[in-house]
């Protein structure tokens, strides 16, 4: 139901990128890529990570690219909700956010919803990237 209500369409108007997400096998690639950045660039990004999902937040130009990542936008109408940039909710974003929080009362905003991967996660614990922790996470994904 989530996928049917959140179709993907080309972005019209200003493209505002707030973050990037990697799911599954792409996590390794994203971690490998971001670890090539100097420490001061890492410090400009925040993120949350798990072996199956990594989300990085920061200015668009500072977000790395690897094949398969999903770029995220913050919904202007509901800043606690991040969606893929091409995803357009057929309901008002704040309604969507309330519905998600209603189903998952333990989640804290901001929240990222990835409809194609049927995943959502809280970004409440996002913290500045730390090289050592990124290396640990990379090892835990089996890279």
């Amino acid at each position, binding site marked *: 139901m989530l996928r049917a209500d959140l179709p993907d369409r*080309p972005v019209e108007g200003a493209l505002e990128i707030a973050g990037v997400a990697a799911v599954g096998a792409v996590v390794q690639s994203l971690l490998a890529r971001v670890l090539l950045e*100097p420490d001061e660039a890492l410090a400009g990004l925040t993120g949350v990570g798990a072996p199956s999902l990594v989300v990085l937040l920061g200015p668009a130009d500072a977000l790395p690219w690897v094949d398969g990542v999903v770029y995220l936008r913050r919904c202007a109408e509901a800043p606690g909700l991040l969606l893929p940039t*091409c995803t357009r909710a057929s309901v008002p974003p704040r309604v969507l956010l309330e519905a998600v929080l209603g189903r998952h009362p333990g989640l804290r905003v901001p929240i990222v919803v990835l409809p194609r991967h049927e995943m959502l996660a809280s970004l409440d614990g996002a913290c500045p990237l730390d090289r050592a922790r990124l290396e640990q996470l990379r090892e835990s994904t089996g890279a």
Partner: protein
Amino acid sequence: MSLEGSASTLRTVIADACAGLVQRDVAVQLVALAAVAREHVLLVGPPGTAKSEAVRRVARGLGGNYFEYLLGRFTEPSEIFGPVDLEKLRQGVVETRTSDMLPEADVAFLDEVFLGSTAILNTLLGVLNERTFRRGHTAMRCPLRVCVGASNQLPDDPALAAFADRFLLHLFLEPIPDPELETLLEAGWSLSDTNAAHPEALASLDDLIDAARGVDLQGVRPHLAEGIRILRGAGIRLSDRRVVKLQRLVAAATVLDGRTKAATDDLWPIVFAIPRPGDQDRARDLLRDTLQASRNVSLGAAAENASLGPRARAERLRIAAEELLALDPGDDATARSRWRLKLEGVIREIDAAFPLDSPPAELKDIRPRIVQRLAEVPLEHAAC
């Protein structure tokens, strides 16, 4: 020269003029559009927003005579149009010596244009409307291709507002936003003022002006009329003069895209013919469907700015990608890294702006080429 050849020459002039400017490519492109349409541009924005630099760069690229002046309340007509010829005056003839002055310019820039006196503005009207300079016994045809006026704000005085209406294109500029400040600092430090004149540029411009007169607009007139109706329905009124002259802008956009038959791709200039900034913003929203197909290979940034449309964005990204893919990053590590980051920036925007499983036609082939090229040129580990 063929239409495509002339359009290609102008494309080079535009691209060279844009190089090094931050977020002023729309201004440069609108000056080029106005020149082909034989219309004029009004740039409105605070001081120091590169209004004059954008025009200078277009003028340099075109070659020819360029005239620039900062008007004030006490500016004399002779400072703009030339002094009276004293020799002739002794003979009882009032003639103006126009050498190196506006009447002989191919491109003109008048800063603080609304501060000009009535005498200046009245004479200027003839130059803008009819390309004719008349003063005393002097009457001459002016070679003026485009005049760009600049001002900090639109005038409140109705008489000056009428003069402002002679500038068909209006562009409202803001200072560079905070996220782009580093880019501005770097670009400003290394900005070169020597973009060279293209030897064929003025001739190409004249070819395009002639070609624009012959563009087939029949197919788009209903769409244009519908767009005007939509705007009127929302209370955005354009004078009949503007409505008719819009066709010149559409025709100019058509030839700058290398065609002689207008299509819905070319309707986007309508947004810039709206005189007020708030109305331009509303128009972008109101005309979202009408301008959905907007794109232009020479004026991509302007088409995208006007239409908010994915097609224009796709075209711009395709051009940017092709340019980068054509470059050899070389052996220098810093140059390779910079080139790679630019290419990553392009594919980042592609992946963010378009669904991966349904890319637009313009990007279908280019995305895999970018992915492959990035794999061939790995990023070096940055020093910690």
